């Protein structure tokens, strides 16, 4: 499991994401976070892992740990269809620009988020947004895609989908 960007040319520089190697780490991050958030992209509707779409894994995580979700269309409708209601329509970069602002009080008006999970976007689009957050905010970011996103604080390495599913399933147990 090499810590190499999934798109070969997307070399970030000296600051790179730490690797997620097990579910315990993710669980610890969720427990430590005061106010986590998840941002889901439409590629989650296309990527199938062990016979299940990425969106299904992500919605299950959001449900289990009560994490509010930001997404755009058509993903919004798909998440609602899966019975999750704490979902807000917003564009990825717009969401990142809000999260970056410490004075933003979030969707509940009680304060900004301190941990952002992100997954399911075109690789470069997510890559760039994570770069924006890395450089211009103190928010911790975790990519939940099954490939390495170097601009996140934490990311899975580019890995076999079965191994990824094993870790996520442990998180869902």
């Amino acid at each position, binding site marked *: 499991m090499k810590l190499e960007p999934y798109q070969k040319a997307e070399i*970030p520089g*000296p*600051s790179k994401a730490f690797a997620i190697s097990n579910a315990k780490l993710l669980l610890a991050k969720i427990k430590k976070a005061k106010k986590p958030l998840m941002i889901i992209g439409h590629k989650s509707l296309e990527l199938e892992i062990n016979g299940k779409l990425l969106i299904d894994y992500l919605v299950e995580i959001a449900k289990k740990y009560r994490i509010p979700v930001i997404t755009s*269309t058509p993903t919004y409708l798909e998440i609602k269809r899966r019975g999750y209601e704490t979902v807000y329509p917003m564009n*990825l*970069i717009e969401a990142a620009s809000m999260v970056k602002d410490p004075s933003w009080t979030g969707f509940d008006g009680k304060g900004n988020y301190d941990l952002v999970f992100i997954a399911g976007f075109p690789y470069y689009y997510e890559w760039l947004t994570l770069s924006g957050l890395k450089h*211009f905010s103190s928010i911790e970011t975790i990519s939940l895609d099954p490939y390495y996103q170097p601009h996140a604080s934490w990311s899975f390495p580019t890995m076999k989908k079965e191994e990824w599913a094993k870790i996520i399933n442990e998180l869902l147990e």
Partner: protein
Amino acid sequence: MSKKDLRVKIGEVKTEKGTMKDLEISIGRIFEEEWEEPVGPTPFPSIKDLRNWDFKLLKRYKPFYMPFCDLCCFCTYGKCDLTKNKRGACGIDMAGQQARIVLLACAIGAATHCGHARHLVEHLIEEYGRDTPLSMGENVEIEAPHVRLVCGIRPRKIKDLEIALDYVENQVTHLLSAIHTGQEGHWMDFESKVFHAGMIDHVAMEIADIAQIAVYNFPKADPDAPLVELGAGVVDSKKPTILVVGHNVPPAIAIADYLTKENLVGSVEVAGLCCTAIDLTRYSSFAKIIGPMSWTLRFIRSGLADVIVVDEQCVRTNLVEEAKKIGALFIATSEKNCQGLPNRTNDPADQIVDDLVSGKQPGVLIFDTEKVGEVAVKAALAVAPKRKKKRSLLTPKEIIEGSKKCIKCQECIKACPDNLPVMYAVNDAARGDLSKLAELYEKCIGCARCESACSVNLPLHTYIISAAEKKMTEEKFKIRAGRGPISDIEIREVGQPIVFGEIPGVVAFVGCPNYANGGKEIPEMVDEFAKRRYIITLSGCAAMTAGMFKDEEGKTVYEKYHGRFDAGGVVNVGSCVSNPHISGAAIKIARIFAKRNIRANYEEIADYVYNRIGAVGVAWGAMSQKAASIASGFWRLGVPVIVGPHGSKYRRMLLGRKDRDEDWYVWDARTGKKVYVGPAPEHLFYTAETKEEAMVMIAKLCIRPNDTTKGRAIKLTHYIDLYKKFYGKLPDDIHLYVRTKADIPLTMKDEILAYLEAKGWKEKATPDPTLLPRLIRKKEG
């Protein structure tokens, strides 16, 4: 016309006061006096003169920067690590560095159009004379809205354009110099210069297009410009074929002229890629368009082109090599794109043809456009029987056998800009099923990075196009030829409904074909908004892509909708350099409908456009630096731009914050009071993740503070309808856009009233909006 740099030298003059020797008087500019419009405050503005306007926009629309890289590697101090806002050795921080890179892109874009315009104007002056009139047809009095607005001059003859070009070149130099280490450092000033680059870019493009329209007699504001053949399947494969590629049309026109002169029309096919193709079909009735620049490798590898003639911009840089593979001959014609070829400009045409056809030289460089015409035609006629449409496409059997060599390393997928599942399609092919490869054809942007990355050197792009060959040869569509400017009559008819909001918006689909999900999304979006009676304008590769889809009746959007600049129109203005006709239409509305002075009056007109004209640019596949500068020209004029996901690679967005009420106040020019007008338009530069998101945002970004209640209700109808369609609920910001109950769409009244009540909504005023205090007619108190 203004006269520039007037100098008077007097050796000796005696007056009552004394004697003066070696007297020299120098005057910067003298402006034309017979033009009734007074010179505004900013003729030929320098890079600082519109800074205050830029800062007003940047206060509302804050950049969100997304660095490609943690480093700066511009100078030998570096590389400098700018992570987490560390400063580099020169003192720059990450925000400054990102804004600097955006400026570099826009300066390159402006320089490219300026270089294009300069070459074109010089060529046309040489061929047709300096006094050639600049007529845009009898229905166009404002021939050059950008030149008038920015420079304050009214060009009447082609020579007059040189004055504006001198200005643009001067500004590009200053902008580039500001990027040097130890010059500009603050992001806001870089961003202001980005806007400046965009503004002068629209001047440069306008110069290029009005010069070629006037001299070559392209359609002049003609809503019924002819329908032109479009697609890889429109070329007659039995005929010798010349392929023209690029943006600067004179060499392609020389080919058409030579064919006409020699009575060879119908014997040789002339077809083009990218903007040269669009401009050639504005001139010649027999020329054809293959498609956007992303069709380059497809068409060349299909073997149909016998001679490839390239000029400048967006030309794939290894076409000499690609031409060799199929035995096609190659002619480069621009000093900006010489491709390492020998310069044969001064050699006799027949000798050049012999050397090309015999294979002595696979490619040549010719700067004499007339000679290009002769050589290209003669070479095509001579080489066609020899090469017999040699191609590099493969048979199914060859693909299947080759695919068996795949080692499943996934390098092709990791190299593809869209991570298309190339390897899996190849693996299917190895089992005899080519359908997945053929499916990739619809989404592939033609960059061929997959085959460059292949560990076992499989020609993967050729696999894709070979598997879809049938589809490719069936690509036969229609596009309306570029019509050029919007006429004054059209502006008179639509000025009021646009400014009042009764025509819900003008949507401009422009730019390159770097689509994240194939090209079908463009015709779908065009159709959706044309149906909704928006005015659709198009240019360049986006205009071609829009035509490459047929509805169930077999019609493209150009056959389905009229070509007038009016509600429900689908208006192809032309090539990349025709974009200023779109932004120029907004300037003309200010002049013709609102009677504002536009001469050297940029800030006031931008304020007018920003607050009143519901226009949005959509560059769904924007790729180039030129696309960046075109967009920035729209921004400074107050027109928001939406890009597709790849547009995020411009590395910064300009986003408003609708949750901050304080950002959305304007002055009421009638009363001098500050009035909240809501986030209209909410963003200035926005990446949409999907076409559905883009469509909702297009409708929303057409909302303007000046909308009448009827106009606002119409705009809200479309915004809410699209939002409900794609999100399944009411938008959460309607209360910000409803000023009075009369703004509420009738068909949604009950639902929206209930929503407003829940939000604690209160009525708001509808001002005569401006961001410029100097335009207030009555001061408060």
